[in-house]
């Protein structure tokens, strides 16, 4: 399963079932490792936050969903 959960360029048609504005750009990413961690720890707590101007492109937002492990911090990858 790929890491791209969703992608729409500013010129792509609006995906079915969404109300996105026609000119919206959106790229959603979840790697396999992130999926495993979400499955393991996401049932308890998840935080959602937006940070602005974190990329080269002006006025873009980076949204992040984050989870915590039993020690209250992130799990070290077994990669």
């Amino acid at each position: 399963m790929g890491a791209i959960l969703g992608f729409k360029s500013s010129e792509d048609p609006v995906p079915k079932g969404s109300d996105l504005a026609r000119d919206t750009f959106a790229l959603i990413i979840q790697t396999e490792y992130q999926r495993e961690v979400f499955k393991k720890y996401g049932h308890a707590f998840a935080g959602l936050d937006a940070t602005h101007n974190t990329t080269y492109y002006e006025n873009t937002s980076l949204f992040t969903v984050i989870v915590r492990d039993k020690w209250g911090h992130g799990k070290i990858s077994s990669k």
Partner: protein
Amino acid sequence: MVRFHLNECILEADINDEGCPVAWMISSNATEVTIDYFLAMLRERNPDVIPAKMMSDNDKAQLNAIRRRYPKSQLFLCWWHVLHAWQEHFITNHFSELWDLLKGWIRLKEDERWAQIQKLAPPSLIQYFEVHWLPIWPMWSARARKGRTIFEFSETNMLIEAYVFHIQCFAIKIDMWYDS
């Protein structure tokens, strides 16, 4: 290379004990429908994962999208953002005793402080709290955060801000590596 970069970013956040990012969206706007699209895709790919508690900024677009896609999750507001909103409604230097009370109020497990706050606060601030904050006290008060497991223990979203800072530092390191 993309895969390598993403995993390194996750590791960088992990090693610094700031929580583990489990999904990202880069978008050209932060409207409710765009956030809703993000959470809809996340829910679709991870149908069995329903967080018992979810935390967000005091941002209506985020809160509405969470309520729509994760209606069974209990919603908490990040304490940093709550206090930030409060302090913008009065001059804290002029009401230092009141400000100390408010900073402590959010952490109290029992509600015995509102009467004290009313004695010190100007009428406009009392009205602000009565209209905007008292009706949603379970979202911000420690009274609603009793008995959580350590998995659920988080009072602010600042770990996300912190990890984004590390990603930015890491990106700079990669740039320097490419340039050398």
